[in-house]
């Protein structure tokens, strides 16, 4: 949609909820981000002796029964429980109840990359050890990428246009972008975001199979994006849910908080390896800025994808310094505190960027020490950096070529 259309529907964020390691709840997460409290620790869910990587960003203080009715427990994977609880809190934050709008004016768009590994692993175990008749009928949907969208929709009577997106670690931003598109097409309110979790032995094996997970046993050193000695990433679990609304409709219902506007979004795909053409991340950022009607000079901070893998860090640094000039914009990656949360990572970055806009402070990238000079990055390190933030760019990449970018701006009214 052209950025020159000044009549275009504006989409704002009126409610947020984070479920992240070291930060269950938005305020807790923001405190963690600003103080550098890490959620990365030795995996406690299962015996990791036979795995080369043993650290993860774990949510350790979530009792499902405290957040959800027992009716939902036998049919939900841990990832869906986080998603449902976060959805409840985001709706409460936005002051939205099922009665706020007609069912069909409220949609749900979430992303998921891992499905319900933990649930499925338990059912497979029953299949092999006891027989097929012991496999739960709820396995039919509990594993599925669309289950968070479906369960949130059913629980909250949100029957407007809904979708589920899968694009590995870029999917969370794609969900938010698609939520905006849905609002622009006339749905007044869309609950969006992404949540992932796969910290069971089978889920863990699948994550390690990608070959990018750090084997460093030191929680303080294992995931150091953009560090000269970066050794891979640490997986995390969790994510964030946002309430995305038509700005006019939000005003009409006197929404109590407007965290900011989702001003632009774009996604690109990398060219075939060996083609000689550059990766697509920079182009995603450029297109998202164009969608927002903004120029690189308008951006106050970039939340990086921050793969923590040297070749990927270098490629991202080239995209950022190519677009903004060497050390041309503050860059940060607070996700080093949580690990990479797959479809949950982008939405948490979006919430964090909105809080940076609200409070005029950019949380640091913890742990990263020596950033190669040739990266040309002004990486916020050590302490939070106070600066007025009116525009933030959030980047995410998914394995095998997905690139997504979201531009957030301060609310204008």
């Amino acid at each position, binding site marked *: 949609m052209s950025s020159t259309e000044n009549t275009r529907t504006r989409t704002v964020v009126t409610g947020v909820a984070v479920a992240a390691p070291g930060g269950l709840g938005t305020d807790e997460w923001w405190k963690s981000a600003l103080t550098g409290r890490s959620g990365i620790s030795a995996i406690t869910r299962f015996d990791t002796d036979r795995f080369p990587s043993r650290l993860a960003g774990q949510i350790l203080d979530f009792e499902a029964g405290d957040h959800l009715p027992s*009716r*939902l*427990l036998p*049919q939900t994977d841990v990832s869906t429980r986080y998603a449902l609880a976060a959805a409840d809190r985001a709706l409460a934050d936005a002051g939205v109840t099922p009665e706020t709008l007609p069912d069909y004016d409220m949609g749900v768009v979430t992303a998921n990359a891992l499905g319900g590994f933990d649930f499925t692993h338990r059912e497979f175990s029953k299949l092999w050890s006891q027989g097929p008749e*012991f496999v*739960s*009928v709820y396995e*039919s949907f509990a594993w599925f990428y669309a289950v968070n969208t479906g369960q949130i929709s059913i629980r909250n009577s949100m029957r407007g246009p809904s979708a589920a997106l899968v694009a590995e670690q870029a999917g969370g931003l794609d969900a938010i972008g698609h939520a905006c598109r849905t609002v622009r097409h006339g749905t007044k309110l869309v609950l969006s975001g992404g949540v992932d979790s796969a910290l069971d032995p089978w889920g863990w094996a699948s994550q390690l199979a990608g070959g990018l997970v750090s084997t460093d046993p030191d929680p303080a050193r294992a995931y150091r994006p953009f560090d000269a000695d970066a050794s891979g990433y640490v997986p995390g679990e969790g994510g964030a849910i946002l309430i995305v609304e038509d700005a006019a409709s939000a005003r009409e219902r006197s929404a109590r908080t407007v965290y900011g506007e989702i001003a632009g979004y774009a996604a690109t795909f990398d060219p075939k390896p060996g083609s000689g053409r550059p990766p697509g991340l920079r182009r995603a950022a450029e297109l998202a800025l164009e969608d927002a009607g903004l120029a690189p000079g308008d951006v106050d901070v970039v939340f990086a994808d921050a793969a923590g893998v040297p070749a990927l860090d270098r490629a991202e640094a080239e995209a950022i310094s190519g677009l903004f000039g060497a050390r041309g914009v503050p860059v940060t990656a607070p996700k080093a505190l949580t690990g990479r949360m797959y479809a949950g990572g982008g939405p948490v970055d979006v919430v964090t960027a909105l809080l940076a806009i609200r409070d005029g402070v950019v949380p640091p990238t913890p742990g990263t020490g020596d950033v190669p000079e040739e990266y040309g990055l002004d990486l916020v390190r050590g302490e939070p950096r106070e600066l007025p933030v009116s525009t933030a760019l959030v980047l995410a990449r998914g394995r095998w070529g997905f690139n997504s970018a979201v531009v957030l701006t301060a609310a204008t009214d």
Partner: protein
Amino acid sequence: MSTMTLDDLRRILVACAGEDDGTDVSGDILDSSFEDLGYDSLALMESAARIKQEFGVDLSDDDVADIDTPRALLDLVNGRVSPAAVAS
């Protein structure tokens, strides 16, 4: 075991599908509809699988779809308890 009691059914329903927030399954629910009790067709299919494991009675999907109340379910199961299950 020989027959399935209402308490057995309560235990199985709660184990397989939890409890609905607004409903008390501990009371006189024999003639309440499963719908009013908050149990949908999937909840009943899951419970049927457990009933088969415990009581040896195989309820088809059609059986499950036709059953409205705990009384109807108990009557069907107890009318079909297999000799093998009784013997065990």
